[in-house]
Structure formats: structure tokens, C-alpha cells
């Protein structure tokens, strides 16, 4: 007589799985990579490939040494590798992304328990370490190949806006949106990043809460406080498209492990990121504050998750019960 398998319900599961989610993030990041290759040349691709290889290699090595199942096929290390490369200047020496990836995977991810256990976005934490250790390599920018400008003196639009580190004329907004500007490998083209972001939203990999709250807060705050001619004169549109805001808001602040679980919590995180970013951009020591704002909000995430919990169904006040 045939015996059937017995297990506890439910008996069907959705087709969505971790590798597919990570692969979707990789796919969404491709357009920005293509733009980088056109704007900065093959070196941008080379840096990205190196970074991914180092990230995947580090993950495999640590898991082999720790005698754990090797999970490089879940694409999560690939995502970290791409994001790290996208957050460095195309002029960095080859060993910068390699060290960065080793730090991201080894120190920030695996040392804390691997996938889902990292309390900070691995790529951003590694970037912060790189920026502290090798500030000059990390902030030597390259102009787009289409412009005939000296690399040593080239400045990013945000640095020009800030006016402390560099002076010069801002590139037109159109160039900032399409990506014909200087900056980190993956952050320059807002258009390409938004294309990928739309894909992530359609595939339901991310929800709108963090990015919209983040970008909305930056827009509102820079409009209010960012102008030189008093309140409500800031160039908030330029603040959205120049710099790493789009990359950070859609691809990094939304990292599952280091962002809140509830939608309300995610909204709070987005607003927090936006506030810190604006403070750093307008009043801090750096021209750009996206990565630090995300790392800081990553640290606050457990606190948000502790206090912003969904209200349990049926948990009603006594007088509401028979409304």
C-alpha cells in the first residue's frame, strides 16, 4: 500500500526565494554599470569585477574554513561586491576594492553570523573604513571621458555646491540625471539607477517606504535650508540627482538585514537617513552624507524594530471592544 508524505501545513510555498531576490538586485544594478563603463571606460568594469570576485572569494573561504555550507550561490556576496565597487571612485588602485570586499564580507557580514545577521550594510561599512584609511585615494575623482579636464583637480558636483573643497561651475542638471558627471562608479546616473529601482519595485523586492521617505526628506530639507538666499531657496532637485542619494535610498538603505521589518519602521528609517544626509551635506565636514546616514540608521534599526511593532489584531482598548 502506498504511504503518502505527512507534514504540517501549509503544503505549498511561494516561488520567491533568497537567491532570486539577490539576483534581482544584481539585475537592477546592471544599467548603472553600463553607464559607468561608457562614462569612465573599462576601468569601472574592471574595478567592479575585482570587487565581486573578492567578495565571493572571501565568503567561500570563510565558510570553508568554518566548515559551514558554502552559500555563494545565493548571490548575496555578489550584491555586496557590486555595491562596494559602485561606492568607490573609478580612479582607486586595484587593491582598494579588494580590501573593501574582504572587510565587507569578512568583518561586517560573516563575523556577525553571515546572511541576515549583519547589523550594518556590509558595503557601506567597508566604504567608511576605506575612506578613513585611504582618504586621498578614495576622494580622487575622475571626470567623464567626454570632458577634457584634469583628473587631479576634478570635483564632484556636491563638492562644488558645498564650496569648501572645490570651486567651479556645476554641470547642467541634465548631465547629473543621465550620468555625465564625476563621482563614484555606480552613483552617477540617476536615470539608470531609477530604471533598476522600478524593476525592484515591480518585482516586489523592495517597497517604496525607505526610498520615498529618504529622498522626500532630503528634498524638503535642502529646499528649506540649502539656499544661499534664505529659507526655501535651496536647489532640492540638484540635491536629489547629484551624489549617491538614489543609489543609497533604493539599493543600500533597503538592505533587509540592516533595515526595520515593519513598513512604519522603514518609513522612520528613511526620514532619519534623509535628516542625517542633509545635515552632513549642508553643515558637516563632508560634501556627501548618504553612506554615513545609512550606517547610522542601521545602528538604530534594532531600536526601531523593538518599539515600532505592528499592533496585534484584536489588541484593542476596552472601550473600543464593542464599538
Amino acid at each position: 500500500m502506498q504511504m503518502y508524505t505527512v507534514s504540517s501545513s501549509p503544503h505549498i510555498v511561494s516561488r520567491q526565494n533568497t537567491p532570486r531576490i539577490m539576483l534581482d538586485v544584481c539585475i537592477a544594478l546592471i544599467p548603472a554599470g553600463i553607464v559607468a563603463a561608457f562614462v569612465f571606460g573599462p576601468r569601472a568594469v574592471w574595478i567592479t569585477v575585482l570587487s565581486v570576485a573578492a567578495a565571493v572569494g572571501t565568503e567561500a573561504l570563510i565558510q570553508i574554513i568554518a566548515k559551514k555550507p558554502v552559500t555563494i550561490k545565493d548571490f548575496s556576496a555578489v550584491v555586496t561586491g557590486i555595491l562596494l565597487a559602485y561606492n568607490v571612485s573609478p580612479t582607486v588602485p586595484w587593491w582598494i576594492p579588494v580590501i573593501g570586499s574582504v572587510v565587507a564580507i569578512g568583518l561586517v557580514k560573516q563575523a556577525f553570523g553571515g546572511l541576515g545577521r549583519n547589523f550594518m550594510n556590509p558595503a557601506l561599512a567597508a566604504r567608511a573604513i576605506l575612506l578613513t584609511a585611504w582618504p586621498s585615494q578614495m576622494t580622487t575623482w575622475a571626470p567623464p571621458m567626454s570632458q577634457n579636464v584634469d583628473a587631479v583637480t576634478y570635483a564632484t558636483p556636491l563638492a562644488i555646491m558645498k564650496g569648501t573643497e572645490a570651486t567651479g561651475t556645476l554641470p547642467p542638471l541634465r548631465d547629473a540625471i543621465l550620468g555625465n558627471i564625476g563621482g563614484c562608479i555606480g552613483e552617477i546616473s540617476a536615470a539608470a539607477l531609477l530604471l533598476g529601482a522600478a524593476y525592484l519595485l515591480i518585482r516586489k523586492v523592495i517597497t517604496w517606504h525607505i526610498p520615498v521617505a529618504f529622498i522626500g526628506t532630503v528634498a524638503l530639507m535642502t529646499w528649506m535650508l540649502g539656499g544661499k538666499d534664505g529659507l526655501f531657496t535651496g536647489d532640492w532637485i540638484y540635491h536629489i540627482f547629484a551624489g549617491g542619494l538614489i543609489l543609497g535610498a533604493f539599493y543600500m538603505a533597503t538592505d533587509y538585514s540592516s533595515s526595520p521589518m515593519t513598513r512604519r519602521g522603514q518609513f522612520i528609517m528613511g526620514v532619519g537617513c534623509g535628516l542625517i544626509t542633509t545635515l552632513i551635506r549642508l553643515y558637516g565636514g563632508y560634501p556627501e552624507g548618504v553612506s554615513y546616514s545609512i550606517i547610522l540608521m542601521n545602528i538604530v534599526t534594532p531600536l526601531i524594530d523593538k518599539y515600532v511593532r505592528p499592533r496585534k489584531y484584536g489588541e484593542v482598548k476596552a472601550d473600543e471592544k464593542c464599538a
Partner: protein
Amino acid sequence: MKRHTFKGGSHPPHEKHYTEDKAIVKANVPDLVHIPMSQHIGAPCLPTVKPGDHVRMGELIGKPAGYVSAPIHASVSGTVKAVAPRVHPNGGEVMTVTIENDGQDERDTSFNSMDWRRQEPKALQERITAAGIVGLGGASFPTHVKLAPPEGKQIDTIILNGAECEPYLTADHRLMLEHPQDVLTGLQILMKQMGVDRGYIGIEDNKRDAYEIMNIAAQEMESIRILSMKTKYPQGAEKQLIDAATGRQVPSGGLPMDVGCVVVNVGTAYAITQAVTKGEPLYRRVVTVTGSIVKDPQNLLVRIGTPVNALLEQCGGLSEPAVKALLGGPMMGVAQHTLDVPVIKGTSGVLFLSEKEAALDEEQPCIRCGRCVNACPIHLVPMDIADSAAMDDYDGAQAAGAMDCIECGSCTYVCPAKRHLTQYCRVAKRHLILARKKKEAKKS
């Protein structure tokens, strides 16, 4: 048109196309029926027959052994062959009366037909109790208990559950299409019995035809409204249905009557109509026999006690081997190890899953994506309960709300890391209930 809904939930594929267009047909009546003495939540019945006795169809063969219990009747006429423990669909062995069918369908006449409009509520309640009516949606809670709320609980709304949110199942859908009047009469009987003048029937909007037919049938009835509900699992769960229909939330640990509601399945309403107007106790029900690998999936009107393998035979067998045989739907159904189990009052469907469909992936680490949090219709944080349960920290699981879990399966369904979240919750609940019973036993 307003689409009623609730917060949370998931969207498993409907898979209703196998049987939704197939009219209900009578299942072949087998030579032997096996009728377990436990087909409801509550105390099992005591058999009132012994081997060799002749019984008529509809005759009482099991009498309730407590208030929360429901009598059981013979589904065929014939001779009692055995009264012995036998394999039961909910697991283990249960005292079961086996009757050899004489093929005569000789009816027991202890119940007369009633004109419900002329009956006192008390008489209606007595009939519903005596006819062994239980919730046919799957939980099998004795209906008469719902209809007798304790002193001080005012019921103002009766909701018929026609959501049928479980994938694959179409028994309730077909019942509404083919017998809208009987379903409505059941609701009217309940409203009269409870003295209530507001009745709703909630139907998911993937059953437009049923919504329209019920709407036409209910046109003249001012106190009854048919509500179209967004197709989302688990819309048919009692608390979610009440929320969608009335906006009221059943308090944590409470019952529908705490917010003035009684929820009854449309199949149950149909059975109530049969019991009252035709004097027919509950000895048969509609069962959807389905699955992509079933050759001829059907909606069958089945005598209680019919072995599941007889139903499969009538549906042409399987086109490829099944790995799982479920009683109920894929989200909350109970997996069977053998097809020798009989159909009982709570059997809404028989579903066969192939190896591919039933595949359960290995658990991966949680990536904290929050999908389970957004899918939970009770607004719990399933991953927290699961983490506690996995470490045998049942107090932690309780603090995270484990006892409120309705085990709908949405969290496990949506989890991309393939964690067995619902299953962890279930384990925690069993432990907590056991611990509570032990504590109570110690006290007394």
C-alpha cells in the same frame, strides 16, 4: 462597488479552475462506510449501536458525550459490521462504526419536515442540535454552541462565510451557484433562531458568478446583504471575515460573539436548511476532489464515512503518483498517510499533490525581509515567534503573541528563506497549551 478586505494576508495561486465549472454530482455510495465517533471539536460521541444491528439512513448511531459535541448519524441503511477503533483523518485511531450498505437507502423518519417560519427559535435550535450540524468549513465546531451565547453576549450580525479562500476548493462555490435559495434559507433560519435582523454573506471576488446569483436570490430580503470581498488569503478565516464585513476586531483571545457576530459557513447553512425543512440530519456533504494530477477532478456530494480511495476511483485516479494526499486545501489541510481514511463532516476537499507541487525546500537563514510581518493577518512578527520556538523558549514565543496565531500558513508561504514559520508557531502553541493544562491540573 466596495470590496471588503482585511490587513495582511497572502496571494497563493487560486487553482480553482480544475473544478469550479463542474456541477456537484452524487458520489457512488460504497459497500462499507466507516463513521468515526469524533467529527467535531469537543467530546467524542458514544456509539449507540453494536455489531449486527440494522440501521436506517439518518438514524442516530453516536450520541454526544458533552455539551460541546454533536450527534452522529448513519449515512446509509444496512447492518453494523464493527464498532472498533480505526484510522482517523485527523491522526491516530478513533472509535468508528462500520456499516455494510444494503443499497436500500431506507430513511429514518425520526425527524419531520418543518416550516421554519412557523417555528419558535427554541425548536429550530433543538433541530440544529439534534441533526448534528457542525461547521463544515473545516474546523467542525458544533454549530448549536455558537447559537447559544452565554448570558450578556448580544449577537446582532450573522455572517455566512462564502469566501472559500483556500486554493483548489470549490465546494462552497458550487453550492452557492446551484442552491442559492437553500443557502439563504439557512441564513434566514439562523437569523430567526438568534433574533437577529442583519445577515451578511461574504464572497471573494474570484467567484463573481456566485456573488451575482446570491445577490439576485437575496434581492427581496432587506435584512440580508451579499458582500464582495477582495480575493486574498485567509479572507475566510473567522476573524478576518468579521473585520472585512463589519470593521470589528475580535479581541485577542476572544470569540466572534464578543463583537456580536456569529460566523457560519455557507455549506453549514445549506445543511441547516436540509435539517430543518427536509428533516435530514447531517450525513452527507460536498467534497471537492482535485489536484493537477487527478484525471477527472470533481465536486462530489459524499456520504459521511466514504473512504477517500473510493472518491479518487470515481475521479478516474491519478495521472502521476501523488506524494501528498490532503484533506482540505493546501494551506491548512491535513496530510494523510493512507487513503483508507473516511470523509468526515469537516472534509471540504481531497487534494492530491505531485512531487513537484509538494516540494519543501530546505530552510535557509532568515534575511529579515519582513514579508512574514506584512503577510500575518493577525499582525504578529512570525519570525520572532519562530526564533523563540526554535530555541525552546516558549515563554518568549508567548510574549511574541504565539497564542494569537491562527495557523493560516501565510508566513510560511511567503518566506523567501523557506523557513517553516507556521510550523514553529504551531509547535509553540502546543507546548503552551500543554503547559497551561498541566498548571490547571496542579491547581485543582
